[in-house]
């Protein structure tokens, strides 16, 4: 009996002492081990925010952040690291962006991307040091506009998220969203679906753009910063608009509603440039042209990237002084992300108000010389056609 007892006691004692020893060691090493594990996890975060320490993940569901923000980490000194998922030329373009407590981008890094050119790996360096005010001033890289623009926008979103997490009120809507919101506010009957109206006749010069509700509920006339909704009965529905603006808006809407186009028979007008497909005369006796331009889709291509075989179709209206009233790209088959910029309003919107002496003074599409040249030839053809048509008369 004594023998058993002694065995039990000695084994228990040995176990207890060993357990105590392990406990003491654990007490001292556990914080260090945890620290090391954290450091390892934060190594990736350190790359974009080298001075950061003590990173902690933030529950971003509590905030209204731009949708590109996937994860956010705060840091002891007030800086943040954001993991952004966006879509560049391909989808699933993942970027880390570190911002210090002053709101300055300290580093960005591409985690994964399916971009084609690899430009994004160097582009991040250009964004180091920018703030929310200066990020728009960074140039995109020609030939990789989509990728670099997506990168820049993601960093901009990160900077805005930084402000939001800092407690600032920030408008996280992008330009398209702001426009849609303004249009909807001006004409709620449009149910949020508007398309830019092609302006074929000369309208009041203070009008910068006109949007038509797709359901026929009326127009939104934009006069500088003011959005005026005009319903289908030609009544202004937007409040707080002065009388003269109201009159301009209703006149514009009425004019666009009632304008009629008559197609001219151009089969005998062989002198017309070959780009001119159709010519219309409005009831105010100015011309609207449908133009077919040969861009990269026709003129370009090489053995690796054959041309699409598609023309760029544009619609262009000229007033009686041979000045462009409006110009719009109807369809195109240019290289996606490069020449396809010609379908953006930022490009074709530049032509409004130009005449034959200064139409070429526009910002060309970077990296898409053939597209730009083809487009400009098409616009030039309209001016020539105007002169021929007037000479005929």
């Amino acid at each position, binding site marked *: 009996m004594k023998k058993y007892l002694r*065995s039990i006691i*000695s*084994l228990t004692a*040995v176990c207890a002492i*060993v357990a105590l020893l*392990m406990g003491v*060691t654990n007490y001292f*090493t556990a914080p260090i*081990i945890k620290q*090391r594990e954290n450091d390892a996890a934060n190594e990736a975060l350190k790359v974009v925010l080298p001075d950061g320490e003590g990173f902690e993940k933030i529950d971003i569901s509590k905030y209204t952040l731009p949708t590109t923000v996937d994860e956010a980490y705060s840091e002891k000194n007030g800086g943040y690291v954001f993991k952004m998922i966006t879509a560049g030329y391909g989808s699933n373009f993942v970027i880390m962006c570190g911002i210090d407590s002053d709101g300055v981008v300290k580093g960005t890094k591409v985690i994964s991307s399916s971009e084609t050119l690899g430009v994004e790996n160097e582009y991040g360096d250009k964004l180091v040091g920018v703030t929310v005010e200066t990020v728009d001033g960074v140039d995109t890289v020609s030939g990789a506009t989509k990728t670099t623009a997506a990168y820049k926008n993601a960093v901009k979103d990160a900077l805005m998220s930084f402000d939001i997490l800092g407690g600032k009120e920030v408008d996280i809507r992008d330009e398209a969203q702001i426009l849609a919101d303004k249009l909807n506010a001006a004409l709620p009957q449009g149910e949020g679906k508007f398309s830019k109206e092609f302006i074929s006749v000369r309208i009041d010069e203070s009008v910068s753009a006109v949007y038509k509700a797709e359901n026929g509920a009326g127009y939104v006339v934009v006069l500088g910063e003011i959005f005026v909704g005009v319903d289908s009965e030609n009544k202004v529905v937007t409040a707080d608009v002065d009388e003269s603006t109201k009159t301009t808006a209703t006149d514009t809407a009425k004019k666009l509603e009632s304008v009629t186009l008559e197609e001219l028979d151009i089969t005998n007008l062989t002198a017309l440039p070959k780009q001119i497909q159709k010519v219309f005369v409005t009831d105010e006796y100015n011309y609207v042209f449908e133009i077919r331009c040969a861009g990269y889709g026709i003129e370009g291509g090489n053995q690796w990237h054959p041309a699409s075989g598609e023309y760029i179709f544009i619609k262009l209206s000229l007033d009686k002084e041979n000045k462009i009233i409006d110009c719009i790209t109807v369809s195109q088959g240019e290289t996606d992300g490069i020449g396809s910029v010609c379908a953006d309003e930022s490009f074709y919107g530049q032509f409004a108000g130009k005449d034959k002496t200064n139409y070429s003074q526009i910002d060309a599409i970077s990296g898409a010389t053939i597209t730009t040249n083809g487009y400009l030839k098409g616009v030039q053809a309209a001016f020539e056609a105007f002169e021929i048509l007037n000479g005929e008369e």
Partner: protein
Amino acid sequence: MKNKNLSILLKGLLTENPVFVLILGTCPTLAISTNVIGAIGMGLAATAVLICSNFVISLLRKFIPDSVRIPCYIVIIAGFVTVVQMLMQAFLPELYDMLGVYLALITVNCIILGRAEMFAGKNGPVKSVLDGIGMGLGFTLALLCMATVREIIGAGSFAGIEIPFMKDYTISIFQKAPGGFMVYGFMIALVYAVTHGKAPRKKEFSCENCPSASLCSNCQKKEEA
């Protein structure tokens, strides 16, 4: 007396080298000897555990009853292994990641249990510590020799530094288990040739020094005889 202590210390290095002569700790030897850094780390970790466990076991050798000595030894060894593991994870994380599961397996490394049985359980603390140092360094040395051969031939590098000519002609089987056995075999032969019979013959240390000799009926019969 001093000479005897010195011989206790030195015998582990060659004449009673635990790996090449006593054929103990074969599993970690084959597993960890693919690169020099890991081998040294593993050897030193095992040495630390061996010294500590030898010391504690020799202190407790009179207190621990025979019937529960194996569980007691295991608990003590496992405790020291865990302590070393925690310290290593805290202060040498790269080595900790490299050794992986083999670090925890030091617990069942038969060198440690073997020395506890063969030596620490029968000798005083000073001698046991010296035995622990000698055997630990012997184990480290054995691992280092194996790893040097296997890393240079198998990976064309030494301690992670590439060797210009060798790296173009690596024989990758030396990094795998068969290469480990081959090197092991040659090493044993080499040590036998060098010690030239001075090393204890297998039958000299086999049964009576076996950790489970007292439980083994075969061995007891022999002793009686």
